[in-house]
């Protein structure tokens, strides 16, 4: 588990790298003010869907967040709006209706609302509300899947004109368990957006997923070639082996993914990324229609594994490599660390060890006395 204190000196290369990555993830995740705004938006839409006049009112609607907000893996987009994902689940005899009836009803109902009329659009599976303050809210209408049971649902797909199996709640539970972390209390009806964890409260798996998503956002210039978040999240969860360190977690995850790809390559197949909580759902199915994207993913993840190994080794230029992979938050984290170093120096709290390592007071061979760097102009 990451610590709340931001260290200046470190016992090992792994500890130093983990501290840097933690600070990068702090920059990546949704700001508390944005999170609060998301909660407010969720609450408002929830009220509209449950009030008189809503076609869903008597269908025992359950509204819950899915995706990065539910998983604790939010990652600021490089550009463009941040997306909030919700499921509107209803108990209804879907077999009596057209597969896209629920999606159409949701779209038409929200379009009739004065507030949402101008911000609404229809996507393949969701109704999207685009907020001027740079949010997308994607609402996925879904039916309880009685034949599969549990938390399985059926979701509409316009391209296929059919309902497809899914299980976002089950996925969230699976991921949280893979993190070996505490679960959150679940409300009976509408589920609130989970309180945002501070980055030092996050598990290594969550941090690793944030970093993988950030890598994806920077490495794939064409969005159509980029692996989708649920693929990265599922693969990370599958191959995470319980490491306490985010850097070690990434090493293990990348090895798992690259090995899995290699095994399937031998048979001329792509990796299958099944929803662990609903094996009928294959998150990688988009690759079948877009083999170029799968090839780009393979090349990208293999390259990332090699570059990551160099970074883990430490030394010259690795901070530049880190910045290339994860962006400007690396630079910000390095500056913040140097600023803390300077503050500790001014407080007379620094010593050096016998190898020249800068440490705290108790363990060094010499205290760093006050000085002023000088030199020729």
């Amino acid at each position, binding site marked *: 588990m990451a610590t709340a204190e931001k260290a200046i000196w470190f016992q090992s290369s792994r500890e*130093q790298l983990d501290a840097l990555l933690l600070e990068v993830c702090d920059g990546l995740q949704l700001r508390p003010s944005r999170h609060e705004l998301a909660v407010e938006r969720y609450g408002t839409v929830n009220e509209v869907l449950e009030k008189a006049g809503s076609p869903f009112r008597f269908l025992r609607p359950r509204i819950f967040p899915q995706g990065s907000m539910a998983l604790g893996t939010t990652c600021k987009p490089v550009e463009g709006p941040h997306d909030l994902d919700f499921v509107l689940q209803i108990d209804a005899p879907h077999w009596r209706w057209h597969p896209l009836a629920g999606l159409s009803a949701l779209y038409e109902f929200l379009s009739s609302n004065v507030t949402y009329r101008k911000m609404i659009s229809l996507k393949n599976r969701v109704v999207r509300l685009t907020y001027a303050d740079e949010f997308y809210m994607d609402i996925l209408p879904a039916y309880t899947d009685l034949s599969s049971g549990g938390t399985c649902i059926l979701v509409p797909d316009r391209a296929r004109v059919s309902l497809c199996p899914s299980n976002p709640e089950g996925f969230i539970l699976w991921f949280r368990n893979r993190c070996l972390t505490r679960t959150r209390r679940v409300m009976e009806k509408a589920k609130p957006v989970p309180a945002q964890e501070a980055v030092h409260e996050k598990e290594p798996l969550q941090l690793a997923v944030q970093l993988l998503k950030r890598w994806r956002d920077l490495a794939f210039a064409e969005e159509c070639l980029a692996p989708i978040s649920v693929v990265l999240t599922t693969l990370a969860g599958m191959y995470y082996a319980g490491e306490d360190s985010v850097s070690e977690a990434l090493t293990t995850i990348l090895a798992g993914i690259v090995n899995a790809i290699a095994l399937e390559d031998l048979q001329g197949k792509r990796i299958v990324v099944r929803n662990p909580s609903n094996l009928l759902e294959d998150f990688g199915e988009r690759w079948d229609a877009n083999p170029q994207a799968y090839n780009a993913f393979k090349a990208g993840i293999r390259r990332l594994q090699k570059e990551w190994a160099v970074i883990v080794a430490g030394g010259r230029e690795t901070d530049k490599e880190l910045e290339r992979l994860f962006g400007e938050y690396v630079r910000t984290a390095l500056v913040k660390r140097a600023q803390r170093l300077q503050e500790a120096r001014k407080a007379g709290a620094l010593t050096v060890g016998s190898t020249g390592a800068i440490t705290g007071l108790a363990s060094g061979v010499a205290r760093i006395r006050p000085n002023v*760097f000088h030199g020729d102009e």
Partner: protein
Amino acid sequence: MQQDQFVRSRFPHFRRTTNRGDRIKWRGTLQPSPRSDLYDVEIAYEIPCRPHIQVVTPRLTTWGDLKRQPHTFRDGSLCVHQAHEWHGNKLIAETIIPWTCLWLAFYETWLETGCWLGEGTHPDLPEHSPFGEIVGAAA
């Protein structure tokens, strides 16, 4: 010589390479953090001059278009103190070497960001500007 005794006892990776009366030279490695490079440093001390500090390897590089690192002399050696902050009665092991480690730590951040965060003289030089002014703070 007392200076030699303290340098080699406090920093075992340093060895004496020259000892001629009032001139002594050491060579050793310093690594300010676990992920830092291992810097091979030579310190030459000739009474009554200030110690001369040179990073032998890796070759120090510069940021952007700058031709030199901050707080160095024209010959590329490091300047880790003002003249009045050191004299021959002060132990090199308790001053020069720790200050060199600190210089290296700030050098590494400067190399990545262009900003020298260890302060120093000549505050009007651009590398002393706040981070946000140089590279644009991240949101």
